[in-house]
């Protein structure tokens, strides 16, 4: 081979340096592309693995869903069959100067059973009380009777033995057609505000306003229709509610029979005004009752009662008031209470109440001032304390000097709702 042949061959067949760089660049590009493909493949594998994993847990999820479904069905079934049982206990200590002895009282122990089935609702309440069931009516006897009979009733009123008595306070069935119309049959509370909210776990005071039992009957045995019409106003609503009832007349034993043809009738109209901002509630209502009542003995007397009431809540302030007047056989009687209260703290409420009763038939004319505190660490627990002062009113119908005495008292109560 000639000497020039080798360089020539190298020149012709070997790549120069720039050509090798091109080759390297191509290789790099190819490797990068391959890496991208591999990345995509790896991502695909990851996705497939994830999908595979999801497929694996899907069965578990189905099992869990079934378990939860069973749980929901169980809750649903138990909701449908459940009887709602609740109740309250009210333990009270009362001390009055100068005549009455101080006493501990298991004032009320109530059991409430409620059940709702579609449009039907049933409620029964049993109450054990170791004070006279109608304490004020026992006083009525004291004041209206003389001799041995009066002494017997006085002994009953002073009974603090704890033996007490059991009473059916409520037993009614309601058909709730819609918000405009429901019908309630049975023994039920009268529709006035205090009677509807008279439970010790709902009231701030340990005692009822003195006038209450002397005017509207506390409860009725009969039929009541009620309903309400509401219209949204902003975020609040305007509402008009009504109730009308026919019942046995108001006398002891009326749950068994009322042999008179003329039954008692009554009605109520309530207006709920729309509220906003610091105004939280403004309700007013008017009530009327026409019936017969037993005051002394078994003779029934015509009895007409009218009243009005209001509830106002502004920020932490609450104001409740009721007024009623009645007339029976030409004898008039009247009474009221006014109760401002303030939420001092989420757990503390302070209240004041002024109340008055003027009743010739009871020989009683009294104004009472109460002031007290409630400690409510839970919605279900209330510890109450109050002081009160009773002032007799000078009225010509007061015949007995003992009805003209002032007295003070204080009471403590522990209430538990369950």
């Amino acid at each position: 081979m000639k000497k020039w042949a080798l360089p020539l061959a190298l020149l012709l067949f070997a790549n120069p340096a720039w050509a090798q760089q091109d080759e390297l660049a191509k290789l790099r590009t190819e490797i990068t592309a391959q890496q991208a493909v591999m990345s995509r493949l790896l991502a695909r594998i990851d996705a497939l693995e994830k999908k595979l994993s999801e497929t694996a847990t899907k069965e578990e999820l189905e099992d869990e869903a079934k378990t939860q479904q069973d749980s929901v069905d169980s809750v649903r079934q138990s909701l449908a069959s459940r009887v709602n049982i609740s109740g309250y206990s009210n333990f009270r200590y009362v001390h009055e100067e100068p005549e009455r002895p101080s006493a501990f009282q298991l004032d009320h122990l109530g059991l409430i059973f409620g059940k709702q089935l579609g449009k039907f609702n049933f409620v029964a309440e049993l109450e054990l009380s170791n004070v006279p069931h109608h304490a004020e009516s026992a006083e009525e006897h004291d004041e209206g009777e003389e001799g041995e009979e009066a002494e017997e009733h006085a002994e009953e009123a002073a009974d603090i033995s704890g033996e007490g008595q059991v009473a059916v306070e409520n037993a009614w069935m309601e058909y709730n057609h819609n918000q405009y119309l429901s019908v309630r049959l049975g023994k039920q509370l009268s529709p006035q505000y205090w009677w509807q909210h008279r439970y010790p776990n709902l009231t701030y005071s340990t005692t009822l306003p003195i006038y209450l039992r002397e005017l509207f009957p506390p409860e009725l045995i009969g039929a009541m229709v009620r309903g309400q019409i509401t219209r949204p106003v902003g975020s609040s609503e305007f509402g008009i509610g009504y109730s009308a009832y026919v019942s046995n007349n108001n006398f002891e034993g009326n749950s068994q029979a009322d042999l008179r043809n003329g039954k008692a009738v009554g009605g109520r109209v309530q207006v709920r005004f729309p509220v906003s901002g610091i105004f939280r509630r403004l309700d007013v209502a008017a009530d009327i009752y026409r019936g017969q009542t037993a005051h002394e003995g078994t003779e029934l007397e015509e009895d007409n009662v009218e009243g009005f009431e209001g509830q106002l809540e502004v920020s932490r302030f609450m104001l409740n008031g009721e007024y009623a007047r009645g007339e029976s056989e030409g004898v008039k009687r009247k009474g009221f209470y006014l109760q401002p209260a303030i939420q001092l703290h989420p757990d503390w409420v302070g209240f004041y109440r002024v109340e008055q009763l003027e009743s010739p038939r009871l020989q009683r004319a009294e104004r009472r001032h109460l002031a007290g505190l409630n400690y409510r660490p839970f919605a279900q627990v209330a510890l109450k304390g109050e002081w009160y002062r009773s002032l007799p009113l000078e009225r010509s119908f007061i015949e007995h000097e003992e009805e003209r005495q002032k007295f003070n008292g204080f009471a403590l109560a522990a209430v538990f709702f369950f």
Partner: protein
Amino acid sequence: MQDAGFAVIVNKANPVKTLAVAELRRIFMKQTRMWPHAESIVPVDWDATSPNREAFSRRVLARSVREMGDYWVQQSVTQGLAPPSTQRSARALLRFIASVPGAIGYVPPGDVDDTVSVVKVTGLP
């Protein structure tokens, strides 16, 4: 409704699409007990300690959870009514509502899924 921080949800079979806030309040206070299509209303609430419940209670019911406790004590003794049943999670609440035809509840908007229907609420303060 979604800007309120919660979405009101009902069972998919429920034809109701809109509720005024006053009506929603009446439902959760058990003052309205039947849907217009004659199904019993079953309100379901969050556990009492839930921030969702506190927010809903103040915004819709205009009462704190504590004040609503007082309300339910009153309703128990005077009407024999129990407060709405409660759930502790959005998932449990969704499942309950998806299973019970008359049920209504509320969850954070992000938790809504296609097993329930969202109801528009008007008149929120």
